[in-house]
């Protein structure tokens, strides 16, 4: 792996940057691997990286039907935070935040993790009760989250409207200072480069089309658009397409796939210092380092596999944004897009083993899994390597939907992202 640094840039500048080599190879898939990861999103690539890095398993392929990071990883609005309600979730997401804090250095790739603070607004008594419940629970779990009055929130985020004339005035907010954003593409590329350097094959334009099982039902291999691969362990990390991939092994997943849209404005000079989310009036916003306001909201109402949604959804989102930030009303939408998110009944992910021996799944991250990328990859690699879950992901097993031990973040707070 060529080392990245300011010095290296300087050195290569003299050679007209001719000396840079591919950040990851483009290998032909081999006939057998110890582990195959299906899905070259952030979670799949991180899994491969940690398999090789932490568990010494490097005869690994990541198979991606398109281009790596082209799924939700490259479409998301990159909000990172860990101030979830339940102990299980806090442990999961804070594990990730801790890895984020050292990720650029670990990967030698600047993923631009920016801990600029995430604010969640309260607009009514119910919101306040719910946010306070989070704040107290987080504090006792050792995770930062603090209550701001409306004027504190305004001081932290000057463009915020806290006038009483608003339809739903801001009455306060919760702030997680360690929360923030990161550069999504760099996460995929950084993990790909580091995993590749450890020997992992990253195979793009390679869709999995079938899962082969032996007489005892255990996994034996997979069919892909680039040939058959023999392997005893497959980790499926295909987000919105998980139901279709798992159906290849005759497994019906407790998932629904919905379009989730986002949009950016034209770039402007720095005006927005943090991330603001409002679940009551459905919108969230931050400003990218390039200057675009990055904006999103909830999913479309209908299930779909097409990566687009209805116009009324971004309209509602911008209604909310203009209400919260009237100074942005004259800014213009530059680009709108959608991804397909895989939503579980309790809005928490599934990370672990499946009834098919050798088949593992990591899915159900829905509208909010980018923030978990490093942690999810690390825990899934552990699970694949040891054939048993790490204590942190043990509660996030598939059969919780059978016995009822749900981790229902949505029911508790109806918070997305």
């Amino acid at each position, binding site marked *: 792996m060529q080392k990245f640094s300011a010095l290296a840039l300087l050195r290569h500048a003299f050679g007209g*940057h001719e000396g*840079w080599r591919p*950040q990851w190879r483009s290998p032909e898939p081999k006939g057998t691997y110890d582990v195959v990861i299906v899905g070259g999103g952030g979670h799949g690539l991180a899994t491969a990286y940690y398999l090789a890095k932490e568990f010494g398993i490097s005869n690994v392929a990541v198979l991606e039907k398109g281009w790596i990071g082209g799924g939700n990883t490259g479409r998301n609005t990159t909000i990172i935070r860990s101030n979830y309600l339940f102990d299980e979730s806090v442990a999961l997401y804070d594990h990730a935040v801790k890895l984020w804090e050292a990720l650029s250095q670990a990967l030698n790739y600047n993923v631009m993790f920016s801990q600029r603070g995430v604010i969640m607004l309260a607009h009514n008594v119910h919101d306040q009760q719910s946010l306070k*419940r989070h704040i107290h629970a987080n504090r006792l779990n050792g995770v930062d989250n603090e209550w701001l009055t409306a004027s504190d929130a305004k001081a932290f985020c000057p463009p915020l409207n806290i006038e009483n004339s608003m339809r739903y005035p801001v009455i306060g907010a919760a702030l997680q200072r360690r929360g923030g954003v990161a550069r999504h593409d760099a996460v995929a590329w950084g993990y790909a480069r580091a995993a590749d350097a450890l020997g992992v094959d990253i195979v793009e334009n390679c869709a999995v089309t079938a899962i082969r099982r032996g007489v005892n039902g255990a996994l034996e291999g997979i069919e892909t658009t680039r040939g058959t691969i023999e392997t005893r362990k497959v980790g499926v990390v295909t987000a919105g397409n998980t139901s279709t991939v798992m159906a290849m092994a005759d497994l019906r997943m407790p998932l629904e796939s919905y379009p989730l849209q986002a949009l950016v404005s034209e770039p402007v000079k720095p005006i927005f210092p943090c991330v603001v989310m409002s679940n009551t009036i459905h919108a969230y916003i931050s400003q990218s380092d390039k200057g675009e306001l990055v904006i999103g909201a909830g999913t479309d109402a209908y299930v779909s596999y097409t990566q687009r949604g209805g*116009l009324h959804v971004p309209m509602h989102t911008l209604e909310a944004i203009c*209400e919260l930030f009237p100074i942005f009303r*004259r800014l213009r*939408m530059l680009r709108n897009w959608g991804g397909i998110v895989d939503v579980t009944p309790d809005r928490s992910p599934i990370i672990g083993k499946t009834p098919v021996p050798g088949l593992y799944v990591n899915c159900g991250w829905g509208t909010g899994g980018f923030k978990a990328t490093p942690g999810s990859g690390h825990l899934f690699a552990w699970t694949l390597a040891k054939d048993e879950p790490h204590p942190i992901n043990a509660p996030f097993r598939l059969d919780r939907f059978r016995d009822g031990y749900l981790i229902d973040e949505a*029911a508790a707070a109806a918070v997305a992202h």
Partner: protein
Amino acid sequence: MSAPFRLGAGGRIDRSRKLRFWLDRKAYEGVAGDTLASALLANGVHLVGRSFKYHRPRGIMAAGSDEPNALVSVGSGSRFTPNLRATQVELTDGLVAQSQNRWPSLGRDFGALNDVFSPLFPAGFYYKTFMWPKSAWKRIYEPKIRAMAGLGRAPTLPDSDTYTQRYAHCDALIVGAGPAGIAAALAAEAHGARVILCDEQAELGGSLLAETKATIDGKEASAWLSDALSRLSHSPNVRWLSRTTAFGCFPHNMVGLAERLTDHLPSPSEGRPRERLWQVRAKEVVLATGALERPLVFPDNDRPGIMLADAARQYLARYAVKPGTRVVVVTAHDQAYRAATELAEAGVEIAAILDIRQDASGSWAEQARGAGLHILSSTTICATSGRHRVSSVEIAPVGRDGKVGPRSRLACDLVLMCGGFTPAIHLFSQARGKLRFEERLNAFLPDGGAEGVRCAGASRGIFGLDAAIADGVAAGEAAARDAVGGGVEAAHSPVPLPKDLDGRRLDPLPHDRSPHRVKAFVDFQNDVTAKDVKLAVREGFRSIEHIKRYTTTGMATDQGKTSNMNALGIAASALDKPLPDVGLTTFRMPYTPVTFGTFAGVARGELFDPVRVTPTHDWASAHGAVFEDVGQWKRARYFPLKDEDMHRAVARECQAVRQSVGVFDASTLGKIEIVGPDAAEFMNRIYVNPWSRLEPGRCRYGVMLREDGSILDDGVVGRLAADRFHVTTTTGGAAQVLNHMEDFLQTEWSGLDCWLTSTTEQWAVIAVQGPDSRKILERLVDDIDLSAAAMPHMSVREGHVCGVPARVFRVSFTGELGFEINVPADHGRAVWQAVLDAGFSRSLTPYGTEAMHVMRAEKGYIIVGQDTDGTVTADDVGLSWAIGKTKKDFVGKRSLARPALSDPGRKQLVGLVTEDPELVLEEGAQIIAEEPTASHRSAPHKMIGHVTSSYFSATLGRGIALAMVAGGRRRMGETLYVPMPEGSIKAVVTNPVFLDPEGKRLDA
């Protein structure tokens, strides 16, 4: 001050109306009909902006919405708008524009240092550095990067304009009013279709607006255009919209249009909306969106004064502007010859036409040759110079072997380039149409696949005026046939490509310089050069989507209109793959940026979300009520007297209810009428409770679950007749509950014969609660026996209150004797007044939601959504008695059998009282079992529950709380701890019913 580069005659401008405007505090003059760009060019101003990354001086490159460089901020104060394209800003008198992304001034910009150090900043450099030391990212690197990035400044004042929206339906929506679009509109209209025609420009006509010589049907093009427009405007079936961009295609032929209404007016009248969003549902869509000219990629191709050739022709023909005095044309396409010829005719000196091709034989080239223009074939540009405006170019011949020969220098003040044309297939692609690569045009063309969407004219590669018109006619007729039938037999099939329009330059022009040293721009706004694209490929980025993201090519505010094809061409040759195999990036809405306000429309302030108010709202505000938002409703929270605070007002209101009587507006409760022979069976299935034996005239508290077994909603239900139930829901849950019921009725139990009707807003509900409530009601009701014997707790009667038909419920959410009077909402205010009058002598006290909350908490009544969240079962909150044990099934029953739902460790509803009676716990506070010792103070703590409701109870003289605690019912009397930042609070677990556990007061 008059503009030196304006011709004395010609153009579609009004020279008699002079307009004064400013750029960066300098005043200029333009005329009516100008854009800001044409007016600046008329004044000889080319330098108008700085590029994003290297801060290079930039000029005006295009004439329309494809302009990448000339971005300015316009206006001031509450109308300040950044990042507008000067080519699309219509000039108004007094217009104030500012250049962007420069400091201290456009001429002298310190940011230009980036250009000097640009070898350090190749594509994606930021991924490779700024990682050390770790803490510097947040403190130094990121703030610096952010400050350098961005284009214009954001507005700092709230927008003072308004926006509007409307829906429309039509048979044929025609996008683009050039010759093909107008021909399509005429044809569709003639065949009986209802037509909407829109165009992003101020004037309809598209390329016809720059046709000075052509004739159509024997008429001059401009005469044909005005005849056509007059025909269209006289047709009742046609609506045409100028200044209207079709920005997005959505499923089922829904097209979004953004119409700009006032920006072109010097002083828009007060209250007139600035923009209008149209959501058009069209049976058929014809996309006649034309084609975009491609720049050429050569060293330093970005200096002010380097322009697209056809753009220059448009400035000449439409605005009578000479964009330069001595011109070098460089081209890979015949259209540039036309620009050169027309400029020459207007008296502009053409220094040379450099054709990168070996020979140009099209008709325009012949004309240019005939006009004696100096044409150099197989010639390239190796360099340009001039700091704020191009002043010369270095040209060189290219041998058959591709070798670049000796250079020579040509002085000039304008360079025109043309790399061919890219059909504008954006909307077609958004409609999920398929594309096919056409070698001869080096462009992607529409290839079917989008239902009810067809392209016409240049947008499908049919150039040439006559061919485009014929194609428009065919498309319009075919659209009319498909939309309205009518026996029109029109075939709209591919037309052979005209021979003289081949333009196939996507590679950078050859030159003799070190490829590392030159900057040949591909994406002008984002400063992406050919070598950046090659670097991306070298670094292993093989997908065009990766190349786009790594280099940022095509991600600027023009979304790659001028850059995408060139980037693709360079990438394809770097990857050594055929271009179609590299593929295209996805086209995303909007086609050009659309104002947030346009999407948001009138939804601001009060109109952001409908405000729902009850019939007594005005009375309550007149009586000083403080309101709270509950869903969309405004509910009176308390009614302070003089200088009472909430605490004192609520204490007084509670006391009144407990000691005498209070009145409360409960109209916001959701109400659903369930009627039909199978109504009781439906109720049995949707609620946990049994309903079959409930007698008409009686009420029951009902609980319903989600499929996962958790509580969805609750409320009192009255049975009015064997086949009729009056259901109430929580205020916030009303719509969700009705959806839930309809979902099951329509999809699971379609055999059940019953109907659901939302009656929330039909009834005003006046709750009269307290020991004296019956005495008040008796004065207002004469046909209902209200006595305890005749009308026990939990019963309902139909009759009259104050002569108004009413349903009277004897129910209580306060724990006192109480009634809820339901009268038709229109009578609500009058009956409220009658109740107040009747209660006057008993000091009847109006109370709000806060007192209601306190009183229900004293009684241990839960509020769904506050004491429960979506994880709580009926048993958890002590409601398992409500479950019909003998019922075969109900929604959620199956889930209740899951082990987790009977786990002894589940959280259960309990009461909590603090040691210190004055202390009121915080709602949301967490509970732990062990007293935190000093050594234990730090996290994590094992949390066993949380406080769900907490109030000061004036009746009990102490703080009380409800809480969900693990194994709570087994912990009665235990002391638990509520650790707060200031210290831990001790609280004792109690029964959640704090007051009158036997319910004697209810039965009074």
